[in-house]
């Protein structure tokens, strides 16, 4: 049975519709990547799945007793809060030293259990977040742009780690990313999101889909597309997202081909 099923999910903030009529299910063991420009509702989608957001309409159902490992986009730790890596790993449920050590190893960090969270580098910090997400032996690992702030080799190494972890735990992975070239190849399924699901399918299928190209450009299969999203359009969606294939929203967005 599916781990998570979304039926007709819509989320509105104030008057803005961030997500409309999203249907999606995630099966055990599959890797699903969500791509989409800024403001396309990627984080909103993930936050609806973990239960942090109430849908305005539609339905989010999780498999009974579903264990989710969640790696947030960024985690700000107030400087007044002293927190060692070891203590962080025991939040909210206390874990044994051995288990904590295992998780850190799985996430590919060195021995840094006694270090303060605030002293970690960006790459170490993300790996500690990953280690914490692995502690409850998750059936579904959710990563929200987990490599933000990492340089290219850093994020490539991080995704490598995810692949390793997934192979060990055999869990499903749902992740959101800008970094299409790194992420797409490893995915079973890619979902192209822009307020609604524009297109979905296998990476090759999505990369060649006109909807995807409309959002991310066409050069090198969209692998090196640089997407610029000018924030001059309002998401009041007076224009309803019903204008057929292509997702050519004329949002004032420009796509630029770096490769050319």
């Amino acid at each position, binding site marked *: 049975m599916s781990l998570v099923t979304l039926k007709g999910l819509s989320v509105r903030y104030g008057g803005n519709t961030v997500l409309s009529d999203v249907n999606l299910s995630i099966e055990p063991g599959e890797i699903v990547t969500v791509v989409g420009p800024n403001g396309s509702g990627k984080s909103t989608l993930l*936050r609806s799945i*973990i*239960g*942090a957001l109430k849908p305005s309409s539609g339905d989010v159902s999780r498999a009974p007793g579903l264990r*989710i*490992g*969640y790696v*947030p986009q960024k*985690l*700000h*730790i*107030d400087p*007044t*809060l*002293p*927190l*060692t890596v070891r*203590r*962080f790993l*025991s*939040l*909210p*449920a*206390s874990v044994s030293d051995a288990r904590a050590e295992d998780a850190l190893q799985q996430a590919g960090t060195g021995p840094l259990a006694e270090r*303060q969270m605030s002293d970690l580098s960006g790459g170490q910090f993300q790996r500690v977040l990953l280690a914490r997400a692995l502690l409850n032996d998750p059936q579904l690992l*959710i990563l929200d742009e987990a490599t933000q702030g990492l340089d290219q080799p850093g994020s490539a190494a991080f995704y490598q780690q995810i692949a390793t972890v997934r192979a060990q735990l055999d869990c499903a992975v749902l992740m959101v990313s800008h970094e299409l070239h790194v992420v797409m190849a490893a995915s079973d399924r890619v979902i192209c999101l822009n307020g609604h699901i524009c297109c979905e399918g296998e990476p090759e299928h999505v990369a060649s889909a006109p909807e995807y190209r409309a959002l991310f450009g066409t050069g090198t299969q969209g692998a090196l597309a640089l997407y610029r999203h000018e924030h001059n359009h309002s998401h009041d969606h007076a224009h309803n997202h019903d204008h057929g294939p292509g997702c050519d929203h004329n949002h004032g967005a420009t796509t630029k081909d770096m490769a050319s």
Partner: protein
Amino acid sequence: MMDLLDSFLVRAALAGVGVALAAAPLGCFVVWRRMAYFGDATAHASILGVALALSFDTSIFAGVLATSLVMATTVSSLSNRGYAMDTLLGVMAHSALAFGLVAVSFLQGVRIDLMAYLFGDILAVGRADLAVIWGGAALVLLLLWARWSALLTATLNPDLAYAAGIDPKREQMVLTVALALVVAVAIKVVGVLLIAALLLIPAATARPFANTPERMALIAAIIGALSALGGLQLAFTFDTPTGPTIVCLAAVLFAASSLGDTLRRAAMRG
């Protein structure tokens, strides 16, 4: 033991330590979550509770607890809706204080006692007060103890809490109730104007010496208790008002701790 409690100084010391022990760990959350003004608003509103309790002839504790709870709940629900919090809190804190002061002035024969509610009157703590203070403090500590992990997770990041099946809004409510309780028991000891100091200063003083949240709460409790006992002693020696003297001592400890930390960092760099 009962003879010991006959001494007003022993009762004052016990009252001070009781409040400090409950205020310190809660104060850590106030610091971590940047709720300093929140504590102020709740404390200042409690003078209105005093006025209401006096006019309706109920216990001060009940009146203060009720108004603090209303104020804290109002503020925390408004904060979730994304108002400009500092302005709003400033308006609410000070207008609650002003309305409270005006309301008290309408009451016959109370005017003389006003100072006791603004700055506390720890030397006048009776046995019944002591029971209320330790009962309230124990309740706060129990609440924090039971919810500690969930509170910490929610404080760290609401989404992490949600993903772990914790409702951050409920944890916020736990803190709100605990805050109202601390205000209600502390009013006799330091008065409404200085309650926030008792929450914040020990926690801030403890920060440089702690590497985990638990240790920070423990050290803050020790510092708070020392400030209460030392302040009482100093107030007795120099014949100064007790509540403010306790806060003064806590502030001096904070200054020493910050200075020590700065020097230590400089030495590490140099």
